[in-house]
């Protein structure tokens, strides 16, 4: 479904060129629960950004559902993200003035769905991620774990093909992090959504069904587990 072929990404940092990805090739199937792991600076975020169509390749190609990302223009990338991709961020990135409910439902209002459907789907999903009764709280009245649950619901609400999560547990204590991972895995199973998440945490890697290790912008191992 996602096919990455010799992906190259270089950054200009002053005089020097940082080779963030040096020819990464990877095939990902629908419904996979895959972790991109590696030390800091190994290129995890860069790879996720490229799959998420918010960064541009310097070489190679990424094909999603048979469509080459490098051939998409800005608008079709935006449309593609709106319809097919969900994002979960390390710092949750909820809108502070909106309630949990509104933070999730606004994604659907971008898709111009009828109000009734927006309501039902949002309430249902918030319940699924364990936030029943907290729908009308603003982020400031939710714990980190709860905020990340809202973020998971926000990523999943439009039934995307792929959810990209860059270090989703890095801001949480290990216990809460595990809960979040369990929830992600559960969602992966239930909705058959592909999850691609990055981490440098051993515990988090344990949860992956497939573990891709990056080092200096190159894949050094790719193993299926369990």
């Amino acid at each position: 479904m996602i096919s990455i072929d010799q992906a190259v990404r270089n950054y200009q940092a002053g005089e020097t060129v940082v080779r963030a990805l040096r020819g990464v090739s990877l095939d990902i199937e629908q419904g996979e629960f895959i972790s991109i792991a590696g030390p800091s600076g190994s290129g995890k975020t860069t790879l996720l950004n490229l799959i998420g169509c918010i960064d541009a390749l310097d070489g190679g190609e990424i094909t999603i559902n048979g469509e080459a990302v490098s051939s998409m223009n800005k608008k079709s990338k935006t449309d593609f993200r709106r319809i097919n991709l969900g994002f979960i961020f390390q710092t949750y990135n909820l809108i502070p003035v909106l309630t949990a409910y509104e933070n999730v439902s606004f994604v659907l209002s971008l898709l111009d769905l009828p109000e009734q459907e927006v309501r039902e789907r949002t309430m249902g999903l918030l319940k699924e991620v364990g936030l029943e009764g907290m729908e009308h709280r603003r982020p400031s009245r939710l714990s980190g774990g709860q905020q990340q649950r809202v973020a998971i619901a926000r990523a999943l609400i439009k039934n995307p093909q792929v959810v990209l999560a860059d270090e989703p547990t890095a801001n949480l204590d290990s216990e809460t992090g595990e809960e979040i991972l369990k929830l992600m895995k559960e969602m992966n199973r239930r909705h058959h959504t592909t999850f691609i998440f990055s981490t440098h945490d051993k515990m988090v890697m344990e949860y992956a069904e497939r573990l891709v290790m990056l080092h200096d912008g190159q894949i050094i191992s790719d193993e299926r587990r369990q």
Partner: protein
Amino acid sequence: MKFLISLAFKNLTRYKRRTIITALAIAIGIAMYIFIDAMLMGAEYESVRNLKWYETASARILDDEYWEERYQYPLDLNISDPDPILERLEAEGITASKRIVFTGDMILSRAEFGEDGNIPVRVTAIDPSRDFDVFHFGDTLIEGRFLEEDEEAILIGSWFAEDIGASVGNWVTIITRGNGGFYEAIDLQIVGILNCPNPNVNRTLIMMPIKTADYYLAMDGAATEINIRLPDQAEVEQEIATIQGLLNGNGITVMSWETMAKDYLAIAEAKRGGTGMILFLIFIIAAVGISNTMLMAIFERIRELGMMRSLGMSDMKIRIAFMLEAAGIGLIGSTIGVIIGVIANYWIINVGIDFGFLMREMDIGYRIQSIFRGTWNPGTIAVAFFAGILISTVVAYLPTNRALKMDIPSCLRHQ
């Protein structure tokens, strides 16, 4: 769209203090705009009225060549037989009165004024029984009495009286040249002092009975001008055409107050231009304030912006969201501004500001002696209200665009 509106208004409450400060900046700009406009409009309205009431009347009949030579105050370019014209005008229901205007030197004697002196003056000889039907001096007497038909007496403006140290009962001599050029000295007693609301008049006014002037200047019944008062709503140009018809030539002509006051009106026009500049500056200041606020608001939310863009929110929608937010600030600012402006207007219209100290010392063109009052101007209030909203909205465009130029990963990494 509904979501964008509600998001914009929720974000307004997010930085309450900043929203309020910016809204107040806009409000002050708008209130000042409304206030200054009301005051200037009022001053202009009153100036024009005082100009007509005490200087030009609505229209004036003159000898054909008089206007060209008006600064000489020529007695020979006169209306030789004014009375039939006055009768004809009266028959048409038009109020009019004749005058002789001449210049001379006023001699002040040591006996009367403590020291000798002489000053150039302009004297207006009026028909005491009819002049106040045309001009509005009727209620300006503050000391003494009005003139009688045929006496050697004058009325003077109160500022003029102050300047020469005159009071009722003093005698002065006016030296002038009569019709034909002979020298004449006329002894006149000050019988009354007028306080004319038009400062230009109050500073110079000397009035005497026309019969006395006729005698001393050998006018033989002639007048230098006939002044006409038209009703306030009259179509001046149309009336003038009618009057011109009545005169059927005879070497005399009729002029509207607008023609006579051309210089004044040109200055008023220039003043309006000047105020336009002030108002423009006020708006620039408000615009810079809004722009800064939006810039800060947007850059504090760069990560949020990155999130929204990753989720596939189009640049257009993001732009609309921020512009709606700015429009909200504009709406609050405009509303407060209009309220303050209207309150300030109530005051300037009903109480006014006393610029007497200023008007006494110099002539700044306005024909108002002391208290400047404003006037209501609903058009300006509406324009100011909408301009506040519009400018806020437009001004938010630039900082939003700047933020949208950043790539999404940089937005997401932003602290």
